[in-house]
């Protein structure tokens, strides 16, 4: 929101610099985002009167002018729209204009030119009725030699302030002036808004009916007759322009002026268009339409509050007026509205029709019922002093009583306890009284009388904030204490899922994997690219109702697409031979559209595009990760749609049949869809499962004093016989003497046909003695016999 220094000075004396003032405002909660000096581009530009225009001796398109700027100077120009006697802006040496031109004394085709005449663009002027392309012609009353900034009333300083949502009362010049008053200890200047009225009564002109007092708690209407619609005076237009509002005509400008000055949005109707001479504030009827002042037509519904006459809506309440009743050049009688509309209702409607105005910016933050009366008074005062029309006596006001200040008692100690510091009582009273919160202290009791516009103050915490923001937060700069020294002892605790993830993350790092952080929102197109069909649990993706782009319009149901997109982008940048992992969630809805929260499953995914990695590299990682946990699992060929069905596996929990992990080679079509490489390997582990699984408990066996015996065997068996089956058989055959067994080679060739050769080594050990050759051979024979009997495997 913008306010200007001069405007603020109407309400409070300011004797500090603009920068200092901005700092004070920022440090007390009203952040000044920008200070704009209106005359930034107007220095060394003055009012000049053209005395003579002669042809240039050496150029057809140029003329030589003698100009009075308080002293005579000569200027050469190509301008066409000037004549002798015109007053124009003259930029002199040293001027830096808004369009970037720097002015120096110069010679044009051999003739001296001591400056330049300026157009509105060169000056950065936006409010001008003349020819925008030529030189700006000034009003005749402009003083020769005067700084143009003064002549155009563009010598103000503008503050752009970010007013927080809890301070609707600061959305005005008066509101900011009140803050300055509190900060600089200077009183708010009393305003004397007087006007004279005619003898007839507003009731003769209009009647007001409010259908919903909750949505419109106050409505004030006044009438003005004998209106002369014209341009507002320059000072008023200049102020509106400086805060970003376009001047229209005197009546409309007055309503906007009051909006900026008092934060009270107003509206003016042309009386002759109000059918039934009645204002009715009611919800719109479904299907009703209104063409608004922005020239768009809106279809209304029952959720939208409107100001109507007997027949039609004339304003969308608090948002925008209709063209069907606005003040125009032919207006002679107008009704002025100063009303309060409920903020939530205004906000909802504004969002629904997509219109935001200076009025909604105030109403949706909250305009309470104490402002309308003052707003109307100021508007009528302006009508009177601008001589814009005759004010009809009386007003219609739907609220009989002005809202009263509230008295609240607080405990001073509680306030200090919250702040952790004490502030001297004298200072407390001064700060609050300067904020117009009339206060007194009796023992621990702080009694405050809170003005109606400070609806945000209810509790001790609110008073604490008022005190500290004016007192200054820098009081804490020098305070140091041991952290949390005053609080109870609590025992810290990690989160199981996060800790499980952290452990696995470090394991993956040691295998050369880098952690990536991908978006968990994705494109619906990824579903097709992953080959997910409609029966898959990954098919139903939750849609974001208001996405900022289709690429991130859905919640992912798999970690794979995020990973593949990231890998693909890396490959496109000619990065190669890398490994990535990600910890994140997938979002599985129970049904769509969503009526309850979806399942959010914590996963870790990992992907390698390294030449030397294969299925077994991933298997090794998975085995090492799972080894810490106390649950039994089996492997099965994976049915994940995006993995190669013959070269991928699922890890399945024996107890629940849950898929704990999937890993393997990526499906060739998915490789193509995401533009990956042929040997792309991908794995994912369900972190929620592991976080719940208990860690292995160990009970340690005694160590044998006798040496172990190592033996190797190679057998030939059917392809279907698994390594697991062989080792299991060996273990059983060894009985009590079993120590370890592992496969070290698997060999296939044509001669073996549909069979494979498996070489394994095993260790035997006794707790009681050194094993003899006889005993060892017995075991070897038993192993071979059992393998043949159980698995039809023979010694190679």
């Amino acid at each position, binding site marked *: 929101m913008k306010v200007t220094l001069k405007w603020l000075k109407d309400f409070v004396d300011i004797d500090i610099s603009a920068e200092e003032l901005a700092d004070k405002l920022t440090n007390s909660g009203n952040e000044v985002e920008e200070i704009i000096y209106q005359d930034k581009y107007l220095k060394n530009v003055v009012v000049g009167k053209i005395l003579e225009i002669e042809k240039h001796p050496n150029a057809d398109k140029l003329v030589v002018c003698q100009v009075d700027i308080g002293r005579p100077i000569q200027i050469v120009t190509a301008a066409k729209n000037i004549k002798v006697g015109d007053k124009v802006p003259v930029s002199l040496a040293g001027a830096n204009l808004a369009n970037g031109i720097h002015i120096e004394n110069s010679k044009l085709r051999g003739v001296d030119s001591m400056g330049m005449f300026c157009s509105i663009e060169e000056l950065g002027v936006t409010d001008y009725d003349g020819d925008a392309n030529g030189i700006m012609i000034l009003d005749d009353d402009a003083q020769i030699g005067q700084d143009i900034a003064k002549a155009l009333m563009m010598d103000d300083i503008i503050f752009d302030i970010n007013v927080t949502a809890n301070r609707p009362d600061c959305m005005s010049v008066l509101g900011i002036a009140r803050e300055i008053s509190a900060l600089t200890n200077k009183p708010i200047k009393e305003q004397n808004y007087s006007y004279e009225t005619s003898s007839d009564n507003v009731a003769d002109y209009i009647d007001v009916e409010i259908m919903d007092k909750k949505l419109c708690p106050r409505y004030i209407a006044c009438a003005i007759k004998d209106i002369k619609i014209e341009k507002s005076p320059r000072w008023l237009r200049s102020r509106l322009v400086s805060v970003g509002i376009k001047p229209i005509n005197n009546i409309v400008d007055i309503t906007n002026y009051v909006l900026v000055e008092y934060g009270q949005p107003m509206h003016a109707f042309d009386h002759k268009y109000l059918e039934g001479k009645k204002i009715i504030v009611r919800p719109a009827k479904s299907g009703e339409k209104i063409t608004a002042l922005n020239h768009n037509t809106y279809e209304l519904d029952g959720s939208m509050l409107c100001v109507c006459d007997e027949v039609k809506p004339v304003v969308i309440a608090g948002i925008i007026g209709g063209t069907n009743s606005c003040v125009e050049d032919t207006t002679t009688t107008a009704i002025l509205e100063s009303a309060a509309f409920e903020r939530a209702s205004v906000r909802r409607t504004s969002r629904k029709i997509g219109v935001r105005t200076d009025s909604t910016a105030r109403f949706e933050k909250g305009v309470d019922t104490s402002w309308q009366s003052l707003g109307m008074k100021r508007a009528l005062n302006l009508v009177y002093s601008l001589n814009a029309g005759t004010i009809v006596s009386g007003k219609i006001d739907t609220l009989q009583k002005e809202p009263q200040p509230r008295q609240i008692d607080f405990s001073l100690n509680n306030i200090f306890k919250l702040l952790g510091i004490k502030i001297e009582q004298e200072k407390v009273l001064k700060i609050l009284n300067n904020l117009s919160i009339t206060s007194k202290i009796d023992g621990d009791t702080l009694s405050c009388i809170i003005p109606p516009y400070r609806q945000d103050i209810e509790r001790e915490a609110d008073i604490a904030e008022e005190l500290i923001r004016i007192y200054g*937060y820098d009081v804490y700069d020098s305070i140091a204490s041991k*952290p949390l020294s005053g609080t109870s002892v*609590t025992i810290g*605790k990690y*989160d199981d899922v996060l800790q499980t993830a952290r452990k696995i993350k470090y394991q993956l790092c040691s295998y050369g994997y880098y952690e990536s952080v991908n*978006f968990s929102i994705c494109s619906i197109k990824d579903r097709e690219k992953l080959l997910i069909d409609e029966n898959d649990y990954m098919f139903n993706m939750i849609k974001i109702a208001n996405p900022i782009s289709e690429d991130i319009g859905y919640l992912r149901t798999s970690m794979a697409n995020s990973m593949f997109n990231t890998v693909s982008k890396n490959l496109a940048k000619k990065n190669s031979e890398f490994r990535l992992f990600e910890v994140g*969630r997938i979002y599985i809805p129970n049904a769509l559209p969503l009526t309850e929260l979806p399942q959010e499953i914590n996963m870790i995914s990992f992907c390698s595009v390294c030449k030397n990695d294969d299925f077994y590299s991933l298997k090794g990682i998975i085995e090492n990760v799972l080894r810490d946990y106390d649950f039994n699992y089996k492997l099965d060929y994976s049915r994940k749609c995006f993995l190669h069905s013959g070269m991928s596996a699922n890890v399945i929990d024996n107890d629940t049949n849950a898929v704990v992990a999937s890993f393997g080679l990526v499906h060739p079509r998915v490789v193509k869809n995401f533009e990956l490489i042929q040997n792309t390997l991908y794995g994912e582990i369900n972190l929620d499962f592991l976080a719940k699984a208990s860690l292995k408990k160990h009970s340690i066996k005694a160590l044998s004093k006798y040496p172990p015996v190592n033996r190797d065997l190679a057998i030939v068996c059917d392809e279907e016989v698994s390594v697991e089956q062989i080792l299991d058989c060996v273990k059983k055959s060894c009985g009590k003497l079993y120590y370890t067994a592992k496969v070290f080679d698997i060999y296939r060739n044509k001669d073996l046909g549909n069979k494979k050769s498996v070489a394994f080594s095993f260790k035997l050990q006794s707790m009681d003695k050194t094993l003899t050759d006889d005993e060892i051979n017995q075991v070897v024979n038993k192993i071979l016999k059992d393998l043949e009997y159980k698995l039809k495997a023979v010694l190679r």
Partner: protein
Amino acid sequence: MLEQIEQLLNSAKTSLKDCSDLKTLNDIRVEYLGKQGKITNLLHSMKDVAKEDRPKLGQLINNARNEIELLILNLQNELNEKTLADKISKEKIDIFEPSKQVEKGEIHPLNKVFDKLIDACVAMGFTVLTGPEVEYDYYNFEALNVPKDHPARDMQDTFFISDNILMRSQTSSVQVRAMQSLKPPFKIVSPGRTYRADSDATHSPVFHQFEGLVVDENVSMVDLKSMLTELLKMLFGQNTKIRFRPSYFPFTEPSVEVDATCPSCGGKGCKLCKNTGYMELLGAGMVNPKVLEMSGIDSKKYSGFAFGPGVDRLAMVVNKIPDLRMMFENDIRFLEQFK
């Protein structure tokens, strides 16, 4: 005889002095100490010596033999050492050839900061809690003193799924769930992913927060300040100072923005901090008593503070990352720089 012994000893010493390899050494041993060796022969010749002189001469010969044996043993050890040293020096490999192990990967800079914060807070007695990212409007807004159609909703553009389900725009939703299920006193932190409909050089639609909440008797702004000072010192160094500026959040009162001295220039002013010496890092404040009450906590007895840094921003400042988007593009050339 005496002379003979003396001579033998001297000649043995001379031979050993010239000996430089194990083979010659062995020859010398055989020459003097072998079955047919010179010492052995000398002992055999004892039979020609007078009986009474035998013990004395025998003693002398034994002494000479012991001396030669010792010299041979010493030289043998010496020569062994030398041979090994020669062997080792010939077996030298090029230690500058590349190693064989897989080069280790790295944790993402964002999560390095998360882990640091989590560890520090657990050590200070905080419990780590997580919650849903797809959340009810109630937990994300209403229970945090932001009713439907409240102007404070404009402070953040929220992704909606339906009228009452949204993508959480702040991890404060976890705090509401905690306040409703835990009994004070408690200290919690909730790290996690958050979403807002905003995307440019300094805003990502997916970003990360780390919110802390302490509810106890006698909690004040001073506790908030000292706790945050500690956390930010841990991230940015022991000389870090922080300052409060007034702000507004619906769920805290008073509310503050927290600035820390710029870790790049230490507060002197530089490009990174736009010459202010400070960096705006997080929002914080005393928990609004309304919020405590909405969650069933007695606001007369208990107060609390809350703080919520954006972790993406912290990671950027810690690592001087020039563009937020780099954090989520996961270009391996970016990630590799954190080795």
